[in-house]
């Protein structure tokens, strides 16, 4: 009879049952979608970071940021005999490889210090560089002629836009990013999240050799293939492989990858590195390793992945903020309203059924039996809401995954100098070099078993709360008063 009575009562109060179930369904669907989007955004953040820092990097060690006025910048120096002069015009071409002018470098021995630190399982060092090629024609005497010196200097970063003409000349500057890496270590660092799409990877035999890997997007844009050579700091470097990100929607960390010692030599930077990528023994030991490294290397900046996550910007950042703030609060508010509605309607239902419950108590029903009846009805309403909410939520997830919204992610940090130079001309001024890794990432909303658990859990919770209030009200009814109230 319990089930029959329950079913008949719910069917007899279709309107109330529908309102409660739909309210809970909307709330649960919202929670499911927001939950899935949050997971999707988290995955997107991880993707954005992996494309820059590689898979498995827990910490990065970088040089301190350069003070304003320090660090210099891209600079081309020409001797009076450089170039070919014809009439009043000198044709010049020069390629330089420079470290990041915004951030200081670290002595290469830092890698040994990091590797020797307790809790570190793997580490690799990289030198972040930018190769710039100046080519064009300048009036004989160059810029230097203007102030009477014998030698000329091309514009440096931060000066006037380095393109166009100057006193009748015409020139351009092309740049691409270069990352010097340890060819023997691929488990951690930028190459941990790439795959060879053509040619071969670098290996320990390539140390000191003029060989390089090229990012697939950069290679495609500039029509570079395995076996070609590119000019890096005036040297011909052979392309031995093309690398692509393991993520479909992101580029790799740099345009060109050189063996670390080759990069150090070509840039003339000496025995230095820009970033050391660190893998800790376990997630639990990351904080301890970070503290130990900060103590060991007081002049360096030690950054954790969670701190790196905050460097992800662009529309992905907006999406994160929107989902975290608006989505979460919206879910909580709608859920609270739905549960409140459910409680109020249940209480109202108990009040309307005072005579019914009084009669049931008069014919021998105990308080517990009446409470179980009321709670059971609320629970079933909640479960109906949960089932509908689950269907709505999954539909929402499917729609999101079909629409495949893309969010722009830009990760700033240690490996500044993403594939900003794609052969085109820098845009001039202070923004000459990009300092962020930008990518359009497809936002996926993954469905996990936890979503199912959450839906059922919330439905049961909503039903329990409403049932508890309704049952409490029903239990408090004195049978005599309940019957008297309608006498």
């Amino acid at each position, binding site marked *: 009879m319990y089930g029959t009575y329950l079913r*008949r009562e719910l069917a007899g109060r279709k309107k109330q049952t529908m309102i409660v179930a739909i309210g809970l369904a909307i709330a649960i669907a919202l929670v499911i979608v927001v939950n899935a989007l949050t997971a999707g955004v988290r995955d997107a953040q991880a993707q954005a970071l992996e494309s820059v820092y590689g898979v498995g990097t827990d910490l990065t060690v970088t040089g301190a940021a350069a003070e304003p006025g320090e660090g210099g910048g891209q600079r081309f120096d020409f001797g009076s005999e450089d170039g070919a002069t014809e009439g009043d015009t000198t044709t010049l071409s020069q390629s330089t490889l420079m470290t990041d002018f915004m951030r200081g470098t670290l002595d290469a021995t830092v890698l040994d210090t990091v590797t020797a630190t307790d809790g570190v399982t793997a580490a690799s060092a990289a030198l972040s560089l930018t190769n710039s090629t100046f080519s064009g024609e300048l009036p004989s005497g160059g810029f230097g002629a203007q102030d009477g010196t014998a030698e000329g200097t091309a514009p440096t970063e931060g000066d006037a836009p380095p393109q166009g003409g100057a006193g009748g000349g015409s020139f351009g500057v092309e740049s691409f990013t270069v990352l010097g890496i340890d060819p023997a270590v691929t488990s951690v660092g930028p190459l941990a999240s790439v795959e060879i799409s053509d040619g071969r990877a670098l290996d320990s035999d390539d140390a000191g050799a003029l060989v390089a890997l090229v990012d697939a997007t950069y290679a495609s844009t500039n029509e570079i293939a395995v076996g070609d050579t590119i000019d890096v700091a005036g040297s011909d470097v052979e392309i031995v492989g093309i690398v692509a990100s393991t993520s479909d929607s992101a580029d790799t960390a740099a345009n060109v990858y050189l063996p670390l010692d080759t990069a150090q030599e070509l840039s003339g930077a000496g025995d230095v590195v820009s970033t050391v990528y660190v893998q800790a023994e376990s997630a639990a030991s990351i904080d301890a390793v970070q503290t130990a490294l900060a103590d060991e290397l007081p002049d360096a900046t030690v950054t954790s992945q969670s701190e790196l996550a905050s460097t992800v910007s662009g529309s992905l950042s907006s999406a994160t903020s929107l989902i975290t703030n608006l989505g979460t609060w919206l879910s909580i508010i709608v859920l609270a309203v739905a549960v409140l509605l459910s409680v109020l309607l249940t209480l109202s239902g108990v009040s309307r059924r005072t*005579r019914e419950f009084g009669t049931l108590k*008069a014919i021998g029903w105990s308080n517990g039996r009446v409470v179980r009846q009321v709670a059971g009805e609320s629970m079933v309403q909640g479960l109906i809401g949960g089932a509908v909410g689950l269907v709505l939520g999954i539909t929402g997830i499917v729609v999101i995954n079909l629409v495949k919204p893309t969010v722009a992610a830009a990760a700033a940090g240690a490996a500044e100098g993403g594939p900003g130079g794609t052969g085109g001309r820098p845009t001039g001024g202070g923004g000459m070099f990009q300092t962020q890794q930008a990518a359009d990432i497809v936002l996926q909303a993954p469905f996990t078993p936890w979503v199912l658990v959450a839906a059922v859990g919330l439905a049961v919770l909503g039903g329990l709360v409403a049932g508890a209030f309704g049952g409490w009200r029903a239990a408090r009814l004195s049978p005599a008063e309940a019957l008297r109230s309608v006498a």
Partner: protein
Amino acid sequence: MTIADIAPTANGTDAAVPIYRAQSVTRTYRQKARTVKALTGVDLTIDPGEFVTIQGPTGGGKSTLLQLLGALDKPSSGSLKLGDIELASASARELTRIRAQEIGFVFQGFNLIPTLTAAENVNMALEPASLSRAERSARVAQALAHVGLDDRGDHLPTELSGGQQQRVAIARAIVKRPRVLLADEPTGNLDESMRDEILTLLEGLCAEGITMIVVTHDSAVARRATRRLRLAKGTVQDITR
């Protein structure tokens, strides 16, 4: 079929022991700021198998007395016994058990659950009993047959006349085989022919051993009783003679 088929408890009652014995029973209520004395000192003895009616003016305490007799409420003072059980000091659990096993209620407004069929309404009174589904179904069928509604078991209350609804309510009251049947204005909502039909049914149940206590305003109902009580100003008078 008679009540003997479905009410062995009623037939097994010891006629020597009064079914109810009330001594100096009072019942007062707090109603907002004032105290209402519904019963001021009721002394009463009812023997098994009696058909007792309680009459009196509106607000005279009839329904209050019926609720005390039905273990729905407790006296404010005095002693009220159902057989050997002191209702005034019984626990809530014991009162629930008594309502579930020993007392049947019939209300003026029938108080059937509108979403359940006649048979399901009757079955609701067996919910507290530990009976098998088959036994419950058999008892429900017997009770409905006893009130002449064996062919109306699957009808909803709205599909039945007032008299039929009251007969369903009586079937619900007797299906648990109670010792006492308490009825509060059982014919108040019925026309004359239906009233007689219900009274005949109640008389028949009483003749089969169930003690019948009926609150009524209707003198025609009171005339069918073996004993007539009048409740006025919170006390009971026997006006049978």
